[in-house]
């Protein structure tokens, strides 16, 4: 047995032999997450091992082991990241948190739940629903992604308009620092006692430690839900109608503007005029009387703005397909989410840019739809590209960078949801300016051996 095998063997002492994977057929599926350019196994870097802890103490021991041997660790929830934040390097060990999937407690009076980081959003939501509650983080990857994964990428779900971002739903966190220290923040919604330590783990993609537990805000399960799907003459009209809704003091759970691609099937079904080139989806949920009042007010405004209501079944069908629609975009090439956001007053300018960009690159990109996703700032584009050769992939990635550059130029962000991972490290300084040095300084201070997910976030 060589030295490397002896070192890996020590991991088995921490988690048990069955929870250390070293065979090629077990390692390959951990060599990628959902980062689109890595479709083919020949492009993957195989980790040294996968280790599967069940407790925070085991995570701590693993981190101490990694420091001792200077082996990088790649924390992984369910591997649903589109940015490659859970892709390993050849000399790293993947820490698979999927065995850490327990609900630690549910406090029905305080309306919070404490979970281990590896529980999937679906597992948590189904359990809560049975007890009359909901945790409203509702990402496209709802059936498979984990709570820890969502927090570590500062993810976003469909139901933001009413309940807020995932980061706002996190009350406290437990994490293992890169030196093996376990820290846990207080279980109170807010404190005025210095730096909000939990926030340094939100969106930092496992570069500053491993999130092991989280206490989350929950809500009573809504009594009712109503989905309004309207067609408009174009994206701009739909977008402006949404702004009117917001200015009227309405805050729908879902606020989605789509371009023609989002209503194409409905045009074919003659649900709206052939000339329609935009759509607006608004969702309300809550108490019956409340939702009815919001619906009535909304319908009035949208009629004035030229919206055409497409029927209850269209709304219901949208709601039911809201998780799988991203998967379906893989039919015409490999799907990628370019999840940019810009300030609202630049949104329509950016939309125009995206349309021109699609036209310019139509030989290598198929637009699956431009949308302002969930909230009006999130003007973004879903695309399908040709993954069949390194050349076609590189041509796509080069074109994608044009979108990011433009979003940053307009004062926006390269990612509102998916994260940086290995896709945009080269844009980190441009986006953050001198603030990026703050991130680098924190990283160096907490992780001097650079063992926590190196290379991600440009760190």
């Amino acid at each position: 047995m060589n030295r490397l095998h002896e070192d890996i063997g020590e991991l088995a002492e921490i988690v048990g032999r069955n929870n250390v994977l070293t065979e090629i057929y077990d390692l390959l599926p951990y060599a990628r997450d959902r980062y689109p350019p890595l479709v083919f196994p020949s492009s993957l870097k195989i980790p040294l091992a996968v280790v599967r802890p069940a407790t925070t103490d085991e995570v701590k021991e693993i981190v101490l082991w990694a420091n001792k041997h200077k082996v990088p660790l790649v924390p992984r929830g369910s591997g649903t990241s589109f940015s490659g934040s859970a892709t390993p390097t050849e000399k790293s060990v993947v820490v698979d948190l999927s065995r850490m999937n327990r609900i630690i407690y549910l406090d029905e009076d305080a309306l919070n739940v404490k979970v281990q980081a590896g529980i999937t959003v679906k597992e948590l939501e189904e359990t809560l629903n049975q007890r009359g509650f909901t945790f409203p983080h509702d990402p496209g990857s709802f059936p498979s992604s984990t709570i820890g994964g969502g927090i570590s990428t500062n993810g976003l779900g469909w139901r933001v308009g009413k309940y807020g971002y995932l980061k706002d739903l996190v009350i406290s966190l437990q994490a293992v620092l890169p030196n093996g220290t376990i820290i846990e923040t207080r279980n109170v919604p807010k404190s005025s006692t210095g730096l909000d330590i939990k926030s340094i783990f939100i969106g930092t993609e496992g570069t500053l430690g491993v999130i092991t537990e989280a206490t989350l805000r929950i809500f009573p399960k809504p009594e009712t839900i109503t989905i309004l799907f309207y067609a408009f003459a174009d994206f701009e009209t739909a977008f402006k109608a949404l702004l009117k809704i917001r200015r009227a003091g309405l805050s729908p759970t879902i606020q989605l503007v789509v371009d023609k691609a989002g209503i194409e099937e409905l045009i074919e079904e003659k649900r709206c005029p052939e000339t329609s080139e935009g759509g607006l989806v608004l969702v309300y949920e809550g108490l019956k009387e409340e939702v009815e009042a919001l619906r009535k007010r909304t319908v009035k405004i949208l009629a004035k703005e030229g919206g055409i209501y497409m029927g209850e079944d269209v709304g219901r069908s949208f709601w039911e397909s809201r998780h799988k629609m991203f998967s379906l975009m893989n039919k015409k090439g490999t799907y990628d989410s370019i999840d940019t956001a810009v300030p609202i007053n630049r949104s329509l300018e950016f939309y125009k840019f995206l349309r021109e960009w699609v036209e310019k690159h139509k030989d290598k990109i198929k637009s699956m739809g431009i949308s302002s996703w969930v909230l009006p700032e999130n003007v973004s584009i879903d695309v399908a590209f040709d993954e069949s050769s390194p050349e076609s992939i590189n041509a796509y990635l080069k074109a994608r960078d044009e979108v990011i550059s433009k979003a940053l130029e307009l004062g926006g962000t390269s990612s509102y949801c998916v994260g940086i991972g290995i896709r945009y490290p080269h844009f980190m300084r441009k986006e953050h300016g001198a603030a990026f040095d703050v991130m680098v300084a924190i990283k160096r201070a907490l992780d001097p051996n650079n063992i926590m997910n190196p290379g991600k976030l440009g760190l």
Partner: protein
Amino acid sequence: MNKTLVTLKEDILFCNRCRCGFCKSGCPAYLTFRIESLNARGVNLLALSLLEGRIPMSRGLAERFFACTSCGFCKEHCPLKVDTIEVVKNVRVSLLESGLAPPSVRDALENIYKYSNPWGEPIERRGNWVKDTEVRKYMLGDDFLYYVGCVGSYDARSMEATKALAEILLKCGLSFGVLGSDEGCDGNEVNLLGERGLFQILAERNIQKFIQLDVKKIVTLCPHAYNAIKNEYPKFGGNFEVMHYTQLLNQLIKHGRLEALKKVKAKVTYHDSCFLGRYNRIYDAPREILKSIPGVKLIEMPRNRENSLCCGGGGANFYTSLLRDGENVPSRLRVREAYKTGAEILAVACPICLIMLEDAVKTEGVDGELAVKDISEILKEAICV
């Protein structure tokens, strides 16, 4: 790599493009071990790696592929409808051809080849269950052939369901008979294990026999046999009107030929068998039978119908036992779900589910509180046979 796997490359590629992992939450093999190489997303990545020549075939790889119960949850919940069951089956073909299948798989296939059952039990014992019953052999002109299958013919516990169904059919005055020791393995699991040659032999042998006896209608105890006869035998020229017994009994109840009169006062939860449910969309008949029994209060488990969790016995795992050990084997997970509903009876309509779940009830230590019964047994009690 075999040719068929290459033809499945588009499906395999779809999954590798997408990798949403929606297949994981109800995958029996994944939930048992929580290892990526066991779920559909992992399987399709490994299949593409095999096609690329990136990984070699090995015994370890074979253990991963043969652990799949072919329950169909992955296909049902795949947005792109990738047929991972076919992918698994075709990789298994290559693994079998390379002599890399796990010993329990190899032994089961050898036994089926030699004795027409996976345990190597003597063929002549296959019909022993009819002793002390009024059930007779199938005769020309009978309305139905009662096809029992291996599990219901040999396993002592399942035999109780086999007999219960026979007694109900007798009580209805249905004209039917069995093949007894002339009955052969239906081959459903052989097909799923990727042993195509043996499956063809079994299917053709059964078809030949059914034709010789001029069988028109078949009623099966086992959903696995139902699936093979209904969906696979036509490919070999065997076209028979086949019903699962829950369909037949439900029809008899509706036509007034069968009535549950005696009260069975119990809270009952029903576990959907994969081969009735996801494979053949038979969700209502078993529930309608239960609802027709006075006193039965039917409660659903959160995972039901197309979302049902496999008992872990499908795809030959019932006898190859690659998913039998551990806290989170599917049967134990399922029993916990059933127990949580407050049900007193966990009803099934499959002899494999019956044994898997009854064993799990004991392992979970709830055997005094939750009884596992086949619908035939519950109905038999209610019609006072």
